[in-house]
């Protein structure tokens, strides 16, 4: 763990250096190209900025109103059926909308039950195997200027579900 985290500190600076150095060797106008690319990056961010405001607005309303907690309660019987601690359900559902909020919910579980508990493990494994669906979808679609997403949402939901079911089974296996 120690070596892993100290190594990961090197990765990004070394990648940046390697790319710039390789560009220099290949006689690319590195600084000019960097500026050019960065400007393109800016344009994309400007394009997705309104999406972020819209999304954060909806997530906050859903969360602060207590609607997300109610939604969670609907899934409680299902949780009991598949031998999952009910406390994990909010983490998984929140992750669909926001990675940050889901992470803070997971940390709550770490606090309450410990990171090696069934609750902590199920949350950690499912968070590491899923992506925030609605966030990713709306930002990507906005970057492409697309309105009709066709089969994206159903397919993405199925794949997320597969990841969550696998996480629950693995965590149950580990805690047996």
């Amino acid at each position, binding site marked *: 763990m120690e070596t892993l985290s100290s190594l*990961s500190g090197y990765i990004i600076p070394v990648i940046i250096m390697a790319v710039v150095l390789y560009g220099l060797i290949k006689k690319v106008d590195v600084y000019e190209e960097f500026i050019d690319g*960065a400007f393109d*990056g800016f344009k994309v*961010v400007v394009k997705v900025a309104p999406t972020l405001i819209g*999304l954060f607005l909806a*997530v906050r309303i859903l969360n602060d109103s207590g609607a997300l907690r109610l939604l969670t309660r609907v899934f409680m019987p299902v949780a009991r059926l598949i031998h999952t601690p009910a406390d994990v359900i909010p983490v998984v559902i929140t992750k669909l909308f926001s990675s940050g909020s889901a992470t803070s919910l997971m940390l709550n579980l770490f606090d309450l039950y410990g990171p090696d508990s069934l609750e902590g493990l199920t949350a950690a494994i499912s968070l590491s195997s899923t*992506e925030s669906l609605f966030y990713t979808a709306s930002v990507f679609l906005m970057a492409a200027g697309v309105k009709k997403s066709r089969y994206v949402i159903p397919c993405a939901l199925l794949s997320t579900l597969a990841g969550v079911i696998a996480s629950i089974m693995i965590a149950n296996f580990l805690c047996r």
Partner: protein
Amino acid sequence: MINLIWALMIVIGVVVAILTGNIDSVNTGVLEGAEDAVSLCITMFGVVGMWSGIMRIAEKSGLMDKWTGMLAPVMKFLFPGMSAKSRAYKYICTNIIANVVGLGWAATPPALQAMAELAKENGHSKIASRDMCTFLILNISSLQLIPVSIIAYRAKYGAANPAMIILPGLIATACSTVVAVLLCYLINKHAKDE
């Protein structure tokens, strides 16, 4: 679809807030949410701008072609008919690699640029192309091999072996990605671009 989900989130939220008396926290929440979005945008300007610049150097120097080459078999399977010379193709490969090696933030710029390039190739249609759908579903299925931040959190909260999460996480990620790839493959065989 997204229209409906977004509207439902707001309508359900406000109705629940009124019924449960949480309207005050929603009232402050909406402004805070909008503010959070803007501060995320400012972060994104820095990170996306920085990585887009680095990416451009890698593209011009031909370094990008080296790593896109490694993914050729995977790309052929997932994006049949896409030219390996197109910008979209290179950006998709860059995104996949950045995701797999766990460079979370570095994966976003190529993803957004790839979507913008795919839109160009698709004549800026309002309907998502087949390749856009595949790429998006693949990203949502999570491609991350080592959940660095979760390992760090587990360490912080005193887990016996913080890194033991890697293998379970890998298996679960494989499950979601395999389902995503299979679904896309099956749909790609039948669906045409609208």
